[in-house]
C-alpha cells in the first residue's frame, strides 16, 4: 500500500513539475526567464517519474531495476548544457552585448 502511495506520489509530483516547467515556458515574459522552467522543473518532473518507474518495476519484479536513473542522470547532465547553448544562442541572435552593459552598471559588478 505504502509502496503504491510512494509510486503514486512520485508520478503525481513528477507530473506536477513537468507541467510547472511547461507553464513557465508558456507564461514567463521573456526568453531568458522562460528558459528556467524546462531546465529545472521539467527535468525534475521527469526525474520523479523515472523514480516512480524504477520503484514500480523493482517492486513488481522483485528485483532492483534502477536503470531508469540513467535517464535522470543524463538529463541532469544535459539540461544545463542545453540551457547554456540556448542562452548563448539567444544572446547571439538578439545581439545583446551583456558583458559591456554589465560593465557600464557598476552596481552589477562583483
Amino acid at each position, binding site marked *: 500500500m505504502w509502496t*503504491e*502511495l510512494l*509510486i*503514486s*506520489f512520485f*508520478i*503525481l509530483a*513528477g*507530473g*506536477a513539475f*513537468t*507541467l510547472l*516547467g*511547461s*507553464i513557465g*515556458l*508558456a507564461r514567463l515574459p521573456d*526568453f531568458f526567464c*522562460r*528558459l528556467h*522552467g*524546462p531546465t529545472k522543473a*521539467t*527535468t525534475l*518532473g*521527469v526525474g520523479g*517519474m*523515472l523514480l*516512480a*518507474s524504477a520503484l*514500480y*518495476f523493482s517492486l*513488481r519484479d522483485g528485483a532492483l*531495476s534502477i*536503470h*531508469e536513473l*540513467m*535517464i535522470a542522470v*543524463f*538529463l541532469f547532465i*544535459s*539540461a544545463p*548544457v*542545453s540551457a547554456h*547553448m*540556448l542562452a*548563448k*544562442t*539567444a544572446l*547571439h*541572435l*538578439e545581439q545583446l552585448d551583456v558583458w559591456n552593459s554589465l560593465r557600464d552598471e557598476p552596481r552589477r559588478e562583483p
Partner: protein
Amino acid sequence: MIIVSIYIAYALIGISLLLNLWRLVAGPAIVDRILALDTMFINGIALLVIYGVHIGSGLYFEIALLVALMGFVSTVALCKFFLRGDIIE
C-alpha cells in the same frame, strides 16, 4: 491508486505538451521554439515512462533514453547552427 495517478499524470503531461506546442508555434524568437521543442522531447520521455508503467512493460526504457540523447543532440545542433552556421566546422 497508481492507475488514477497515471491518468492524472497523462493529463498533466498532455497539458504540458499543449503548452509546449503553444510556445513552439507562437515563438516569438527562434530560441523560444527550440526551447519548446527541447521541452517537448523531455515531456515525451515522461509520457513514455508513464506509459511503460501503465502497461507494465519495460520496452519503453530504451526509447526514453534515446529520446533524451537525441533531444539533447538536436537542441545542441540547432543552437550551433544559429551560432556558427556550420555545425561541425
